[in-house]
Each structure stands twice: as C-alpha cells, then as structure tokens.
C-alpha cells in the first residue's frame, strides 16, 4: 500500500477537482430525488381521497 501524495505530484487541482465535481453531481442527484419524493408524497397525502380498502380490493382484482 502506498500513501498518495495529496498534491498528486503537482496535479492536485485537476485530480481533486474531478472527484469534487463528481461528488457534487452525485450528492445533488440523490438530494434532489429525495426532495422530489418528499414533496410528491406530501402533495398526494393532502389531496388523496381514495380509501385504502378500495385500493386493496382493486389490487386483488388486478392480480387475480
């Protein structure tokens, strides 16, 4: 195992810049998805009027 030089032999800006950008992209994607889902669930729970029992029956009809 070799401990990497943090300056990456003078290329630190390019190497760490690449990984930082990738990390930001991944974190942004996951964060925006969880935010979107939370908003959707809130919106649906406030507007949904179909009772669970009706849906359960409907699901049973679909699967049978």
């Amino acid at each position: 195992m070799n401990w990497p030089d943090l300056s990456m032999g003078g290329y630190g800006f390019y190497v760490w810049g690449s990984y930082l950008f990738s990390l930001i992209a991944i974190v942004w994607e996951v964060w925006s998805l969880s935010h979107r889902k939370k908003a959707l669930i809130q919106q649906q729970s406030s507007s949904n009027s179909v009772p669970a029992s009706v849906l359960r029956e409907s699901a049973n009809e679909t699967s049978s």
Partner: protein
Amino acid sequence: MNLYKYASPAMFYPVAGKMIPWFAIPAAVLFGVGLFVGFFIAPTDFQQGDAYRIIFIHVPAAWMGMLLYVLMAAYAGIGWAFNARLSSMMASALATTGAMFTLVSLVTGAFWGKPTWGTWWVWDARMTSTLILMFLYIGFISLQAAIEDPRRADRAGAVIALVGVINVPIIYFSVQWWNTLHQGATIRMIGKPTIAAPMLAALLIMLAACWLYSVAVVLMRLRCIILEREQNAARFAEVGV
C-alpha cells in the same frame, strides 16, 4: 407467480422501493473500495504521473453515459411499440442519470486534458460526439418536460432516443475511425487490457459501483415518476400491495 403484474406501475412501485437498498448499499461500499484501490494500491503512471488517477471516475462515467443512453432508447422503443407505460417511465428515469454521467465524463475529461494535452477542450471526434450525447439527453429531457400529455411526451421522447442511439457507436469507434487527440481504448472487448492489474481492478470496481448507483437512483426516480403519473400509486404502496 404471475410476473406480468409487475409491468403495472402501481404494482412495481413497492417492489422498486424494496430493491433500492440492495443496490445503494453495495454501490457505496464499492465506491469506497474502488477509491481505496485507485489511490492507495494502484501505482503512479510513469508518463502521466498522478494525473492519470482521474480515469477511475472519468472512464466509468463515460461508459455509463453511453450504456444508459442505449438502455434509455431500448426502454423508450419498447414503451412506444407495445404501449408499455412502465417502459416509457423507465426511459424517462434513466435520462437524468445518463446526462449526469455524461456531464461528469466531459468535466473530468477537461480536468484530465489540461495537464496532459495542455488544453481543457478540443473539437476532437471523441469529445465532440460525447458533447452531442449530452445534447441528446438534454433534448430528450426538455422534450418530455415541454409536452403536457405523458403519452405524447413518451412517443416524442422515443423518437429522439431511437434516432440518437446511432451516436453511441460513433463515440465508441471515433478513436479508431478518425485521427483524434483522445487516446485509444485501454480496455478492449477482445485482447488484453493495456494497463497494470491494480489500475484495471480500480477501474472495474468503480464501474461496478457506478452501475449499482445508477440502478438505485433510477429506481428512486422511477418511483417519483410513478407517483406523478399514477394518482393512487402511493396509496397502493401504503396498503402494502
């Protein structure tokens, strides 16, 4: 067991939710392992020094950008041909992740190009065709967002996805067909790879991590799309069906 019932978005919604941790957790572990092998075990390149370590994110991101486009086109085509809603939704779910990976490959490629070629960008065949891939993703996402009726949006998206798929082999073979500044393939479908074993190991582990990550986030996005399009999907999920 009737597997066809899972072709219904409402039935697939809870299954997708259960599948996400099975992909997300191994993805996080493999990202850690891949970075460890890439930074602590893989040796310094004798020509490019440590700048080459950008490949551990650049190459998997570039591959994912292309592979996800092919998958997106396939799902969009199936959705269009068979009027399969879940397939069209899957195509929409794949687009943003594919665009994200393509953007990462372009940006990390620029970060690699500056120290090795002396420039951030050149209108080289590989880079230009990858930029076109990015525009195709943007076109697909924008077109779907611009059309209110989801069925019409799916059909329009399928056209752009299927037409644009021709760009993927162009990207892949561009380094062979044209004289480009971009280096040739390091890992070939036939024949031995031209890099050291620890470098190859790090690259393949990072590729596996990117695959698992993609499946997890695509399933997360698919669930959002199902919630948006299928009014009662969330309630189906609540009652555990």
